């Protein structure tokens, strides 16, 4: 079985040679679009870097069937640790490269403010990702596999976020203290709105009062490679990751390994071989973890270098220089994290569409002050999300796994409901499995582990609920499974 797996690495899923015409055509088309952008203005290279890193992420995500939702979910649902191991590999690699990127002085990461919102957001996100059938990143790669249910999830994540940050539905529910603190920020608030909504009060009255930090900073370690590697990489990423790998091995994989490799003496070397066998058990996943870790680190480096070259802090400045001022925030900025991120740009897509439909979505801090509402054609991180879909489609078609799949009614309803929960969770927790977890724990910010605890909790509850739902449905159909 293992042999057939490895010999299939560069073949289609059915073992035949890869299909190459359509994938090459798709890549050529993407290249032509890139050339058109560059012919309009060479400074669009900044946007294209996002897009092409997206293509690379898409290729690895589909190749490794890399789904962070399943890291948590399949562990609880069916006891499979494959994906959890893959994510942990990616975390270690990304964290090591991040330290070097920071030493090079071009690290684009900003720590997230620490607070209860991360746990709450993570839990909502975890509930949603199991219901929807995938997290924010796997929704994109599955869209590239032709899964139309995933497109529903994508719409749902996008619009639920845009709605949440611009609605005043929950304005009566917020704590008095937030309102009072937010009132003290009235000068800033009045720049975008005269009547702050609940998310504005949450942002100004709560989030702005919190602070975040990296371990290197918090522990007072020197701001050099040694400090970054020790504080950010080792303490925040490597140690928790190794502990989790050990727990996965002891409580999940070891039983199977002992049965398959009977031995009288369970020495340390024997156990380590067992751990290694767990890591390489799914080669595709391990390779994807490695690749994603490397390129996620590289993206920060390349974008950081481009910022230095153009002498900017934010893509909004470049857009303004190029004459595209529509959709910039009042600070002339747009959302431009400089690293892998997913949900905020999707909120912008929906916000832009709602704005075009005549709804007031820019009179809030989230779009009006911080992220802007650029046209999707000028949305650099948005191009990364498009790139993920393209990259996934390229490899799915090449491996003959592409298929237009219509969701059945149950899947469609769950897709929309799960997408809404993920959208709400992402806005409250300040990101998804990528922005709030993957990009933070790899840059010395422990907030990502808190998000993961929330994701695991939400995922666990959601798996229990989903299994109960399936059992109830089976019993109702008098179907003895």
């Amino acid at each position: 079985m293992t042999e057939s797996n490895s010999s299939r690495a560069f073949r289609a899923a059915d073992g035949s040679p890869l299909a190459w015409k359509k994938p090459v055509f798709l890549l050529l088309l993407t290249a032509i679009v890139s050339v058109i952008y560059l012919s309009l203005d060479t400074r669009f290279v900044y946007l294209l870097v996002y897009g092409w890193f997206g293509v690379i992420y898409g290729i690895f995500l589909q190749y490794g069937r890399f789904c962070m939702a399943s890291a948590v979910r399949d562990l609880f649902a069916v006891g499979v640790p494959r994906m959890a191991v893959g994510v942990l590999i990616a975390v270690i690699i990304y964290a090591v490269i991040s330290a070097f990127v920071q030493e090079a002085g071009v690290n684009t990461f900003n720590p997230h403010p620490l607070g209860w919102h991360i746990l709450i957001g993570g839990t909502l996100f975890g509930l949603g990702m199991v219901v929807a059938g995938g997290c924010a990143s796997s929704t994109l790669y599955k869209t590239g596999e032709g899964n139309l249910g995933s497109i529903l999830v994508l719409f749902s994540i996008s619009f639920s976020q845009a709605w949440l940050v611009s609605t005043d539905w929950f304005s009566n529910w917020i704590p008095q203290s937030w309102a009072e603190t937010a009132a003290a920020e009235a000068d800033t608030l009045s720049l975008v709105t005269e009547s702050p909504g609940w998310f504005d009060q949450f942002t100004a009255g709560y989030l702005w009062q919190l602070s975040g930090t990296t371990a290197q900073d918090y522990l007072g370690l020197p701001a050099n490679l040694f400090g970054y590697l020790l504080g950010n990489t080792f303490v925040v990423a490597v140690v928790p990751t190794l502990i989790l790998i050990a727990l996965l091995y002891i409580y999940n994989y070891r039983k199977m390994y002992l049965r398959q490799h009977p031995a009288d003496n369970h020495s340390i070397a024997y156990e380590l071989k067992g751990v290694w066998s767990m890591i390489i058990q799914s080669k595709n996943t391990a390779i994807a973890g490695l690749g994603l870790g490397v390129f996620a680190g590289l993206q920060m480096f390349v974008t950081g270098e481009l910022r230095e070259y153009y002498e900017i802090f934010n893509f909004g400045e470049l857009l303004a220089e190029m004459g595209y001022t529509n959709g910039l925030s009042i600070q002339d900025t747009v959302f431009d994290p400089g690293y892998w991120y997913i949900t905020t740009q999707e909120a912008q897509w929906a916000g832009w569409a709602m704005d075009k439909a005549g709804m007031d979505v820019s009179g809030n801090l989230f779009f009006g002050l911080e992220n802007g509402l650029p046209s999707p054609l000028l949305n650099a991180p948005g191009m990364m999300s498009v790139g993920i879909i393209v990259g996934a489609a390229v490899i799915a078609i090449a491996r003959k796994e592409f298929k237009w799949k219509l969701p059945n009614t149950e899947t469609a309803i769950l897709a929309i409901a799960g997408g809404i929960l993920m959208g709400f969770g992402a806005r409250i927790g300040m990101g998804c499995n990528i922005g709030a977890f993957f990009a933070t724990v790899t840059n010395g910010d422990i907030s990502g582990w808190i998000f993961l605890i929330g994701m695991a909790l939400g995922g666990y509850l959601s798996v229990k609920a989903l299994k109960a739902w399936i059992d109830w449905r089976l019993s109702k159909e008098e179907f003895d499974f």
Partner: protein
Amino acid sequence: MAIKIKETVKFEKLEDGKFQLDVRSYVCPHVQIYAEKALKKIGSGDEITIVFDNPSSGESIRYLCANNGDEILQDTESAGTFTWKIRKA
């Protein structure tokens, strides 16, 4: 007799010791949850053919089989639809 759940999940006994589970149009984790249930349901030595079109579920099913010692006799794929034949240990 084939039993269908709202025309979406189909689990049927083809002949003695041979079963089929059709979970096309389902995504994660439904596919692997149904696969696990079906594998529990059938007897030792029985064969089951699982038909699904969500590629990532295959990874989890492969692990489930390895964990239980079930043998994957055949795993074919055609135009995005996967057909796996498994013999329960």
